[in-house]
């Protein structure tokens, strides 16, 4: 459907789409939420009614077209509806990350000039109220969950249920005004403003129109043939563009049902109960699922354990054969069918993946073992490559050509160009954002006059499959002192595929060799420690344990061996490493809210450790400031051991491999 066609049919904005959905599939479920232990559902007709009441209430409170409404909270149907309600009133929703501290929130609320805030609960209201004197534009705060807020000053504070009741009561008075505002909306209007978590510097407000979101959602939903019988679980932050595209864009375009978990902690059991057909998760969720599964398998009876390992082996063989476009042997095909009955089926059911028709992962590189595992047991897991600035979709895997190393073919409507000098990937699509809010310089830096957007990633098209391969951040790709190529993320990802390593940061640009910081995975290493009778009281203590060091050293050695084989990156072998005394944390600014490493900040903060690495010391004493969840600060002191690792010349690696 083209933009003019959508406009003609009254499907060019979210409010109009909602009305259309209520008309065409009013009885089908649109939203679900688990509350009081039971799944509650709302049909499209009910959602349209609720949203309309909310929009009338917002107008009654004085919301004007063009103003911005910040939405802060976890995934809740009411908060999703409130975004459309704001759009109905002509305003622009700005979802915020619910786990950001008051300081970060103050920046975004102020920068977006938010007029209204719709917050989930007391925790969020408290954060907003604590910085309210710095927000001259803020007029009203609305909350969803009244608990603990009863005795607050309600002059500029309202319960969402009251706002809705107010709206219903004002139907006769404000209905015409609302209908006019809905009818006046057009595809080129701003639909949403999403703040990027920002690997560097302050967050930027990405302005996206209804056309951006809806055209991209239509194209990508068509690519995977999503329909209104599909369902998904919305559990990723509402402020993230992906959630907006999946749980709002694609859901409104196709009419499928979006379910919200009971709480963040119950997400995995809710997933199991729900059995969605469309599922997105960053690699770390798939990893958590597999890690918990493996830990439980360790405790299973010997018979079950044997069965599990045997059939997983079968699945691997069958998957490998299929990938090579060969037919697996008859015996393997029979065993695979038996395995589906005895192992894969129950396993997928337990993970909540048995109905998944389309599964996506993105955001970080996914480990080969992990990826192959899910695919081999019959989960259609694919990768996509996207950005906030593109309304997510740039490339995605087609069902019949999924390969780990690449990120797929361009989504319908997307053009891609690779810069010949730098290798940077550029794209142009209907989903390309309008601008960064209030920063024309940043917009001009990213988007050129012809609409081409720089991804900041270096990559190339694989000649064989015609799919895009991404190497690393273009600005992170550097050179070692001897001039050989240095792609830190590539190495870090290799390291992170070891279950013991949660995060790794590799240094080496302009240096004689590569050296690394490592974060151990407390769950995996902790489990190992338990089985080996190693007592520890904290992350710090476990991280400094000599046997943990030995384990990590072995992992790095193996990585070096595989790197030695790579003609491009054999110079990137890690010569020395240390295990950090604290987990890298978004609260300390070391990671982004989406858990990406902020290389520069880490390099500054731990400058003493880097000096010690390259200075050849065996150990280093350090003090680090940490921020607790409630915003207070403290200090961690530690003496860290530094170890050398064996590296391999190319020839030796080849010999050992043989």
């Amino acid at each position: 459907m083209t933009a003019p066609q959508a406009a003609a049919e009254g499907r060019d904005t979210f409010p109009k789409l909602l009305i259309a959905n209520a008309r065409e599939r009013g009885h089908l479920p649109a939203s679900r939420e688990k509350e009081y232990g039971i799944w509650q559902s709302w049909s499209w007709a009910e959602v349209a009614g609720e949203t309309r009441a909310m929009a009338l209430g917002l107008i009654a409170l004085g919301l004007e077209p063009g103003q911005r409404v910040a939405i802060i909270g976890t995934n809740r149907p009411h908060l999703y509806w409130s975004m459309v309600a704001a759009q109905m009133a002509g305003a622009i929703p700005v979802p915020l990350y619910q786990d950001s501290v008051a300081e970060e929130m103050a920046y975004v609320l102020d920068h977006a000039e938010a007029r209204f805030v719709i917050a989930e609960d007391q925790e969020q209201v408290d954060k907003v109220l604590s910085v309210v004197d710095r927000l001259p534009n803020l007029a009203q705060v609305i909350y969803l969950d009244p608990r603990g807020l009863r005795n607050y000053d309600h002059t500029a504070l309202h319960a969402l249920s009251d706002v809705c009741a107010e709206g219903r009561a004002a139907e006769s008075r404000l209905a015409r005004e609302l209908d006019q505002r809905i009818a006046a909306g057009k595809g080129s209007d701003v639909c949403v403003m999403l703040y990027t978590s920002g690997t560097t510097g302050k967050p930027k407000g990405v302005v996206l129109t209804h056309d951006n979101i809806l055209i991209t959602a239509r194209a990508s939903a068509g690519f995977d043939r999503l329909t209104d019988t599909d369902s998904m679980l919305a559990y990723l932050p509402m402020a993230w563009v992906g959630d907006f595209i999946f749980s709002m864009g694609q859901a409104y375009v196709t009419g499928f049902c979006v379910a919200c978990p009971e709480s963040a902690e119950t997400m995995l059991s809710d997933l199991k109960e729900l059995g969605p057909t469309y599922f997105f998760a960053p690699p770390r969720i798939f990893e958590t699922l597999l890690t918990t599964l493996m830990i439980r398998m360790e405790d299973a009876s010997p018979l079950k354990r044997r069965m599990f390992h045997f059939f997983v082996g079968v699945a691997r063989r069958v998957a490998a054969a299929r990938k090579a476009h060969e037919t697996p042997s008859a015996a393997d095909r029979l065993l695979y069918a038996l395995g589906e009955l005895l192992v894969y089926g129950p396993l997928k059911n337990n993970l909540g993946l048995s109905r998944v028709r389309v599964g996506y992962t993105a955001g970080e590189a996914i480990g080969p073992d992990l990826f192959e595992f899910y695919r081999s047991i019959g989960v259609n897991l694919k990768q996509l490559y996207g950005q906030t600035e593109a309304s997510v979709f740039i490339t995605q895997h087609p069902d019949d050509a999924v390969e780990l190393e690449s990120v797929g073919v361009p989504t319908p409507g997307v053009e891609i160009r690779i810069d010949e000098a730098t290798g940077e990937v550029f794209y142009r699509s209907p989903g390309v954002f309008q601008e960064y809010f209030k920063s024309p310089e940043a917009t001009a830096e990213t988007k050129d006059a012809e609409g081409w957007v720089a991804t900041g990633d270096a990559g190339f098209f694989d000649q064989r499959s015609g799919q895009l391969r991404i190497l690393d951040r273009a600005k992170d790709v550097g050179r070692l002192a001897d001039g050989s190529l240095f792609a830190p993320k590539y190495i870090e990802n290799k390291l992170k595929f070891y279950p013991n390593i949660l995060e790794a940061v590799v240094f080496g640009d302009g240096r004689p060799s590569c050296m690394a910081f490592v974060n151990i995975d407390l769950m995996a290493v902790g489990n190992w420690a338990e089985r080996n009778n190693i007592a520890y009281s904290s992350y710090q203590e476990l991280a400094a344990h000599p046997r943990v060091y030995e384990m990590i050293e072995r992992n790095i050695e193996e990585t070096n061996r595989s790197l030695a084989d790579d003609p491009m990156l054999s110079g990137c072998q890690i010569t020395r490493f240390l295990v950090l005394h604290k987990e890298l944390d978004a609260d300390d600014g070391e990671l982004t809210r989406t858990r990406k490493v902020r290389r520069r900040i880490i390099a500054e903060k731990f400058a003493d450790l880097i000096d010690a690495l390259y200075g050849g010391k065996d150990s280093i004493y350090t003090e680090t400031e940490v921020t607790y969840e409630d915003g207070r600060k403290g200090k961690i002191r530690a003496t860290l051991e530094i170890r050398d690792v064996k590296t391999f010349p190319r020839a030796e690696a080849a010999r050992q491999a043989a």
Partner: protein
Amino acid sequence: MSLPPTAEAAADDQTYAVVEEEHGLSPRRVGPVVMDIRNITLRFGGVVAIKDISFDIREGEIRAIIGPNGAGKSSMLNVINGFYHPQEGEIWFRGEKRGSMKPHEIAKQGIARTFQNIALFKGMTTLDNIMTGRLTKMRRNMFWQAVWSGPAEAEEIEHREKVEKIIDFLEIQHIRKTPVGRLPYGLQKRVELGRALAAEPQLLLLDEPMAGMNVEEKEDMSRFILDVNEEFGTTIALIEHDMGVVMDISDRVVVLDYGRKIGDGTPDEVRTNQDVIDAYLGVAHD
């Protein structure tokens, strides 16, 4: 300045309002006296655990009982709870003098409690443990519950709904079906609070709700106690060692030492009371 003897003050609502005003108590929240404890003395053989103690608890307030180890705090709670029977003194609950009662009879009156050493059924799930708190509210006899159809089923659904609301309130959905023996200490404490809440108490007794918790768990627990008080209007009497917590969340504090009452009043008054300071920091003997 300390409060006038509140038993008398309660008789006169006018005086009461003035006193409240003076002490910055919010008259909106705190109502008349619900429990009046008069001249209680409790002995175990020759040991005097509590000696001639009087204080009261008002509707809707958070009342703390503090004191050094062995001061008689838990004994006092056990007296209120009906577990111990004092040799002397009277307890008036909602304007009626209480005779000798068994703990379960007192539970039916609307007084629920938690314990210093968690007393949950370790092998049962969180849900089932909180369900046991509804026991005093169940009307059907064992026969109907065993058959579990018709009226007993309808009743269980009704109770389950109440319990689910508590689970939601305490944010423990993720451990609904987990046996409590497997839960960490802080969560077990929360489940115990949930069980006490399930009885829909008018007066909730908490015996060291924060013992053995880290700072974050204590903050969570404080929040829950305040929310219970605010949302359900439940009157709360609690024993606690952590002074910071007590001073932050309670409306009035009574201080015991060696079974005697040495202070009573708002946190600020108690903090500046010389006897209290001496009891906690020790006093020079010269």
